């Protein structure tokens, strides 16, 4: 299970948390919202995309917060950088 952060345009109300896979809704001062939470796998991730699409949300950025594992698809030499971005 990996932790992901989605940033979307507009300030979203808490009621969408459940519809978006239980992600925690954090409204930010710059008029965007971050949704943070555990994503089970790629299928789960794509399911969240579809739900965002159906609500007409604009996805601004997406990043994985957890460290990639060794057997993961991420090249090992880049793994040190993932925390920073």
């Amino acid at each position, binding site marked *: 299970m990996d932790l992901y952060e989605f940033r979307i345009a*507009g300030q979203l*109300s808490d009621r969408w948390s459940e519809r978006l896979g239980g992600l925690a809704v954090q409204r930010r001062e710059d008029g965007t919202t971050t949704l943070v939470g555990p994503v089970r796998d790629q299928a789960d991730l794509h399911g969240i995309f579809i739900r965002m699409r*159906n609500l*007409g949300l604009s996805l601004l950025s997406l990043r994985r917060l957890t460290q990639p594992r060794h057997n993961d698809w991420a090249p090992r030499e880049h793994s040190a950088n993932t925390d920073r971005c």
Partner: protein
Amino acid sequence: MIENSTDKSTNIPLLETKLFVPGWRAGMVSRPRLVDRMNQGLERKLTLVSAPAGFGKTTLAVEWLSGLGEGRRRTGWVSLDQSDSEPILFWVYFIAALQKVHADLGREALALLRSSQPPPIESILTTLINEINAIGEDLVLILDDYHLIDAPAIHAALEFFLEHMPPRMHLLIASRCDPPLPLARLRARGDSLEFRAADLSFRADEAAAFLNDVMDLRLAPAEVEALEKRTEGWIAGLQLAALSMQGRENLPGFVADFAGDDRYIVDYLVEEVLRRQSGRVRDFLLQTSILDRLSGPLCEAVTGLADSRNILEMLERDNLFVIPLDDKRRWYRYHHLFGDVLRAYFHEEQADKVGLCHRRASEWYDANASALEAIRHAIAAEDYPMAARQIELAAPALFAETLGNTLYAWLKRLPEDIVRARPVLCVWSAWSYLDESHFEAADARLGIAEAWLAAGAVPGKATETAGPAMIVADETQIPALPGIIAAARSFYTQALGDMRASERFARQALEQLPEDSLVWRGGATAILGLATWTSGDLETAYRYFLNGLELIRQTGNSHCHITGTHVLADVRVAQGRLREACEIYRQSLRYTREWRGLVIRGTADLHLGLCELYREFDDLLAATEQLQQGRRLGEMAALTENRYRWCLAEGLLEESKGNTQAALEKIEEAERVFVRDAVPHVRPLAALKVRLWLAQNRLQDALDWARKHKLSADDELSYIREFEHLTLARVLIARYRSEGKDKSIMEALRLLEGLAQSAAEARRGASMIGIRILQALACDARGDLARALQHLQVALVSAEPEGYVRIFADEGPAMRKLLRDALATGMAQSYTRRLLSAFDGSARVDSGAATAARKNTNGSAVLPEHLTLREREILRLIAAGIKNQDIADQLFISLHTVKRHIANAYGKLGVSERREAVARASELGLL
């Protein structure tokens, strides 16, 4: 009643509302700049409107259509939903929409789609494309909400359709995401026109037209601009804003608040809109948000509000995001985005009511004979007992309508204990596991069903042995259940290779199944045929298999004997009845030709079968041609389980041309693509390789093979290992030739004697000839020419009437020497000569005509045996007055090949025209 039209040939009810072409309504903003562009795109194949929810995709399509004019273009429309991800349903709706344009359109394609075993989708679409071409009218088809389609098979088939789409047809796809079609290629070729979010957003003038003209809000230009900027031209946002502003006093204040707020537009505005509704309407909106389609009676059932119909009409009047689905004000739906938002509010505010509303919807659909919708809502309500009852009742119809996948998907949603209590569902779910080759899971489910039946449980009553009560929703399915269980068992034991068990279960199924269970009886009979084949009793196997196919055919599956043809022909080949096998393939080919442009799965395999037979007849040209003809038909026409056989046929052709190494490589390729299936594998590829090794003098490899497979001359003999034992005999003969040890040759002879006996008992003609040939070679190897010739003579006598050639010729130099010895003693003169001429290998294939011509200029006498079997066959047809093209058709070879055979025959006969050829041939007694 929900409105639907049911085709007579099927039970799938079509929802008329999905085919409704929406009309232009007051409150829509006209967008001439986009419509102009769309008109220009009409000459292309595809218009793609791809943008997120709320960008007015559907509205734009509606405006465009209304401007096209009735006479010029005729239009079909499909509003897709999730259930259309089932390929059959998708194409049924696709064609139904076309039939709104032209009632007869796609009739043939529709019939094929609904046959119990539909041909590959490409052939159905080819039929459809031909039908569209034939009517020669302009037409436009709109697929709305294509993003709901989530089946790669549909995308692939749509791509095929687009590729071959008739020039007078145009397709419009509206979707929230780009469909997985080759868009880059379509763009590059100028075949598509796209409208995306940036094109669809309202510009300032359109926003003004909407807010001030349509919604009559009388906003100042600065306010319009502020709203347009805040929503970025997103139409749903502007609509929500307009709804929030209607009847409000201080509009500039609202605009200022909204523009200065960072909240997600939908959150901000839906709250505004909902706050302005009465409690009743608000509840109505939330509770009906779970419905895909809304009607007065259905909404009343779900909400309990008696004036539901009036509320719906009021919502339409007030532009509250309901869209009419017919022109009678009976069915509506919510705008998708608004519906999604309402659902979210519903789940948040009235979570305790969600299940109840789904359950009420399910009950309403159930009472109104709409099983698919009823089951969907029952599952959403998590009311599994209700879902289970509905699924059980609908299962036979779904299965017969080839909606098995939908059925299987639903069964997977049911909790384990719900299925376990229901023997009928246990059996259906066992088939769903068999479909995925999960044999253990299937077996477990069958076991549970059997336990219920064995316990003599009475529905609804708890028993001591089986614990809680057994539940049966559809008593009529119970009588056939034991037989279906046995049929399922015979199916998977066959796939697992346990032929004895398979045969036992198949027999049990036939004993237990009611007379009218044709599909199951047919399947069990065919499996019994395969099991009997494995045991070596070929004639019985043939009869069983044929009967099984006949039963299945009676259920309306008219193509099943095409997929079964190679089994029937293989059995005939094993019996040594090559001509009959040929006729079986040709008969099936004639049947496939009756279906004109349609490709029936298994057609390619018919050519493959003929290739194998023509090769045996030593007509390598025709054999190669069959192979190419089959390949040209494409993957979709070929049975996947036969893939290895194509490589094998190529390998054997190479062997016959004398290219041993190439043959070996092809057989290795065959090994790589080999998949085990229920058809007995009587000619193992590994053993076929050993033959070729021996031709390459790789005796040690051959001996290693025999050791590895634990083969010995003292084994108990069985048909399924016959080919391996024959190969062992070959290895032993080769060893004797190389090492000269008597032991090897004695073992070979003993083994062959045993094999000959069991082959003779079961009348396996092909085996008997093959065994005699090896016996002849073995005797000759140890210097016993007299015995060798005795064996050879028996082989020749049985082989000649069926036209065998390669079975001798592929034995190589040893056989050639033996045949010369036979000829010297005057044995079977003409046949022996013909066989000897087949030893030349590839040289003969390419220069047949040249050698024939040379023979004639030399003035030597033409002997009948100089003509190949095929040439004689063609001469006979010429003598019967049949035209070249008809000969080609009848023999399933190309006109070109017919002419080449005729030229060769003329050359050999020393004639130059038809009449002369017939006269000469009859003189020589060839006809």
